[in-house]
């Protein structure tokens, strides 16, 4: 009922004059009235329209007022009905009230009686409607609450984490199914024993301490203990728990048995690796010493033969003995290089800020013998400082400069340039040389380079440059073990940098490298 709208009254009396008089009277009071003379008509109208109040005569042919009200109330239980009785029978009026009528009026009616009765009845009607509305809201609320509870319960029940509430008496109050899945016990079995029963005896003291912490208001984070699975095995659980000072603990747990196992495996694997590394160290040490000794014998005594009996040997024999010596010396160099190469991956990186120019000059000093008696033009521009391991980076410079000197040895004047250029970050590497016309990216890093005007190489074989024992030139043209660039590659990689080369046959070569963290 719209409180501001005018109440709608249905007035039923088989005496037309009475009915009309009533209608008019009540319309004057501000009500909207519909007057009918038969109960059947009234029912028909009630089916199609909503009314607030039915005012009906009791005695009517066809159907009496009581039957009408009953039927009307069935259609709308909040309807209010008032019966009119002209024959003064209180019994019938009472019967009518028992049938659902709210009140009765005696005919002939007086205005001073009807109006308040109708008003009162409409008041009840309003209350009934409000009541119905309240009840509807309560139902709605209850439904929402039920839905929220259901959602929470679903969450609680389907959570893969173990969720629980525990009481101060040491028993679980509530558990989610994850407990059963993880520990094998049924919900009943978990609820019927104190939770400490399931805990490993070695972990009981620490568990009880954690319970105490919560009683003092501290939260428990990442506490681990062992719970026994129904099959007898132990599962490591990691707990987070807190108390709301209501005597209950609210906790979540995760099965970390696998993680702990993995960690233990990892530790063992690491110590195995460390042991293997130590063995490798010892092995290398032994190898280097024991392999060099026979080589010295081969070289030394071949030389002895040449010195003592050379004159008696035909030139071919002398040549062959010389080969024997060269073979031994080559092998010595190889052993040295291989040892360096293998040590590089094991040696810890001592990263410091270095004066690059000084490093380059130190390297050049060590290569003085290679520079003896040659025309060498060295061009070095300002080199920005770099961050890296000094001894390892010196090795890089020595190897690159030594190569530059070696492969330009056939030029009258060897021109060697050392410098630094900006290089795009996601740029070239030995595995992906720079694409022609690469767009300049916003991020640049410094690439140091060594350029020579030597014999160069065919870029088609560039991908083989940094492989161990890979050579792009004949041994008789340029000697070497083929490990030098592999060493450079290994060192630069350990620094997190990239190394690559550009060259053309007979037009020299440029080797570039970057180090991690050298941003312009």
């Amino acid at each position, binding site marked *: 009922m719209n409180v501001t709208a005018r109440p709608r009254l249905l007035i039923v009396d088989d005496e037309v004059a009475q009915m009309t008089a009533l209608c008019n009277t009540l319309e004057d009071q501000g009500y909207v009235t519909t007057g009918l003379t038969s109960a059947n008509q009234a029912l028909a109208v009630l089916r199609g329209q909503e009314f607030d109040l039915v005012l009906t005569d009791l005695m009517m042919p066809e159907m009496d007022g009581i039957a009408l009200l009953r039927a009307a109330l069935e259609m709308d239980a909040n309807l209010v009905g008032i019966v009119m009785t002209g024959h003064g029978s209180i019994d019938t009026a009472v019967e009518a009230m028992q049938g659902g009528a709210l009140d009765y009026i005696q005919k002939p009616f007086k205005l001073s009686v009807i109006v308040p009765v109708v008003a009162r009845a409409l008041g009840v009607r309003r209350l009934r409607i409000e009541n119905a509305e309240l009840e509807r809201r309560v139902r709605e609320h209850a439904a929402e609450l039920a839905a929220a509870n259901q959602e929470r319960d679903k969450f609680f029940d389907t959570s893969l984490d173990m969720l629980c509430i525990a009481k101060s008496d040491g028993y679980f109050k509530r558990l989610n199914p994850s407990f059963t899945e993880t520990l094998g016990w049924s919900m009943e079995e978990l609820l019927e024993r104190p939770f400490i029963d399931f805990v490993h005896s070695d972990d009981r003291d620490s568990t009880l301490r954690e319970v105490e912490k919560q009683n003092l208001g501290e939260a428990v984070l990442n506490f681990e203990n062992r719970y026994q699975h129904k099959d007898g095995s132990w599962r490591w659980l990691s707990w987070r728990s807190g108390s709301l000072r209501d005597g209950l603990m609210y906790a979540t747990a995760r099965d970390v048995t696998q993680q702990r196992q993995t960690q233990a495996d990892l530790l063992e694997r690491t110590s195995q690796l460390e042991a293997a590394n130590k063995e490798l160290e010892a092995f290398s040490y032994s190898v280097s010493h024991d392999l060099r*000794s026979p080589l*010295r014998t081969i070289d*030394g*005594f071949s030389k002895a033969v040449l010195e003592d009996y050379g004159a008696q040997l035909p030139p071919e024999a002398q040549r062959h003995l010389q080969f024997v010596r060269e073979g031994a010396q080559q092998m010595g160099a190889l052993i040295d290089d291989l040892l360096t190469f293998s040590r590089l991956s094991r040696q810890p990186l001592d990263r410091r800020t270095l004066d690059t120019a000084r490093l380059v000059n130190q390297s050049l000093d060590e290569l003085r013998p290679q520079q003896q008696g040659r025309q060498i033009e060295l061009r070095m521009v300002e080199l920005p400082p770099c961050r890296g391991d000094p001894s390892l980076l010196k090795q890089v410079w020595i190897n690159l400069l030594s190569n530059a000197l070696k492969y330009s040895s056939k030029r009258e004047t060897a021109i060697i340039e050392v410098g630094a250029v900006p290089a795009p970050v996601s740029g070239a590497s030995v595995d992906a040389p720079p694409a022609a016309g690469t767009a300049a990216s916003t991020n640049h890093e410094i690439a140091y380079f060594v350029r020579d005007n030597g014999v160069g190489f065919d870029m088609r074989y560039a991908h083989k440059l940094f492989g161990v024992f890979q050579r792009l030139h004949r041994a008789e043209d340029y000697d070497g073990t083929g490990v030098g660039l592999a060493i450079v590659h290994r060192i630069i990689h350990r620094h997190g940098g990239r190394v690559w080369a550009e060259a053309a046959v007979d037009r020299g070569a440029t080797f570039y490298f970057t180090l991690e963290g050298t941003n312009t």
Partner: protein
Amino acid sequence: MSDTNAVDILLVEDNPKDVELTLRAFRKANLTNRIHVARDGAEALDFIFCEGAHAARTIEDGAKVVLLDLKLPKVDGLEVLQRIKGDPRTKIIPVVVLTSSREQCDVVESYQLGVNSYIVKPVNFERFAEAVEHLGLYWLLMNQPPKV
């Protein structure tokens, strides 16, 4: 104190080929000094401390320089070095480690024990001979040994 017993160089080396090459190098460098060869660490110590088979010797007639390899049977080179440098009677004797090992741990350990010089034997014979020659020239001719 017979002159004929005096020795200039004690060469401690177990590899017979290396012994021969070293002696050859000394000959070529005209360092025809008196050389005694010990084939293992125990023999070296007996010689230096005048014990065992060398009980008849005196420390004063001892070598002016010891060329010591590190990898030796019986008593290891570093232990020989330690014994020589640890004894007040012998610690003034110059010891030159002449070895195949370039391992830093050996170099550091040797210097910590008081070695006078550490040389790595090159594979190349000429360089080896050169090294030996320089050694000889330096320790026997140039270097001023203390008068015992």
